[in-house]
């Protein structure tokens, strides 16, 4: 009975400490997407460099591809941009850009200035496609498999670590299957 007197509060404290410790390692800005594991929301959008042509999710069936949400007004997009340019050079996976709530001229000028890693960029002028994809900040990056299912979502600027440890291994795995 004496042992219970101090062991119970100690156990409660330890549990609380564990919860708080785990809480510290988590980023509340990263809201897990319910769309991972579900079919990518379909879109058909005008291309940034040639608005008379469109690109849709159906056109990308049968291959693993990345959708990177960016905008010319997005500051943190500049952080990940050099990594995306490098990724594009390796030809590891086609990168599609979703120019989110941007103006075509501004978007084109931004790519001309910083380099264009995208196979194609499409324009989501009013952000409707962004809402369908659950985008709540720019940049965000999605991995889509051959069947058109979203397999991974990266929130915020892509880092070298995220690319090497999460995104590329998932891409390779999906390309093999």
């Amino acid at each position, binding site marked *: 009975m004496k042992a219970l007197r101090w062991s119970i509060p100690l156990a409660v404290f330890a549990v609380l400490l564990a919860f708080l410790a785990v809480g510290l390692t988590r980023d509340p*800005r990263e*809201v897990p*997407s319910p769309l991972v594991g579900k079919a990518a929301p379909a879109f058909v959008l005008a291309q940034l460099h040639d608005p008379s042509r469109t690109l849709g999710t159906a056109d990308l069936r049968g291959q693993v591809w990345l959708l990177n949400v960016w905008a010319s007004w997005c500051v943190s997009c500049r952080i990940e941009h050099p990594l995306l340019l490098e990724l594009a050079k390796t030809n590891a996976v086609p990168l599609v850009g979703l120019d989110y709530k941007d103006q075509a001229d501004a978007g084109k000028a931004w790519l001309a200035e910083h380099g264009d890693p995208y196979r194609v960029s499409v324009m989501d002028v009013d952000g409707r496609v962004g*809402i*369908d*994809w*659950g985008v*709540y900040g720019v940049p965000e990056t999605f991995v889509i498999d051959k069947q058109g299912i979203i397999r991974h979502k990266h929130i915020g600027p892509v880092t070298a670590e995220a690319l090497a440890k999460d995104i590329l291994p998932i891409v390779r795995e999906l390309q093999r299957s």
Partner: protein
Amino acid sequence: MKAVRAHAPGRVTLARAAVRVTLARRLRVLAVMAALAAVTLAHGQPADPLDERLRHLEADLRCLVCQNQTLADSDAALAVDLRREIRSLAVAGRSDDDIRSFLVARYGDFVLYTPPLKPSTWLLWLGPFGLLALGAFVWAAVLRRRGAARAAGAPGPSPAAAARAQALIEAGE
């Protein structure tokens, strides 16, 4: 001295005039403010039951950009877009539940300020009741132990101490 006295009444009049001017100006400013307030209030009144319904719905939805604000309160660009989207869904005749599931499908349960009851939220919903039950259990245990101790004959004052107390009482009388 004379000059000062002669001058003094004039100064008083001037001061009075100044008071009158500021009073008139203040009244005019007040009138303008009242008119503006009336206009604002007239515009602020919920003219539409749809507005009222959406405000109620959006007050229980979280803005994903500024996470501790509701969709109704937030001025973030995404919140503006989502309010527009919600309005168009409501105008198209979708129910509040339809609109909620539209948002949950895209952003997850995180958008709901009132999360649903399901296995992963059992702790959240039932935890406080569990803690209450635990407290009641501890309280009951303590009371029982105290009762048992009393029944077993709580150690009262020793016979010597009792005798001394009695002597003191008698001495006081």
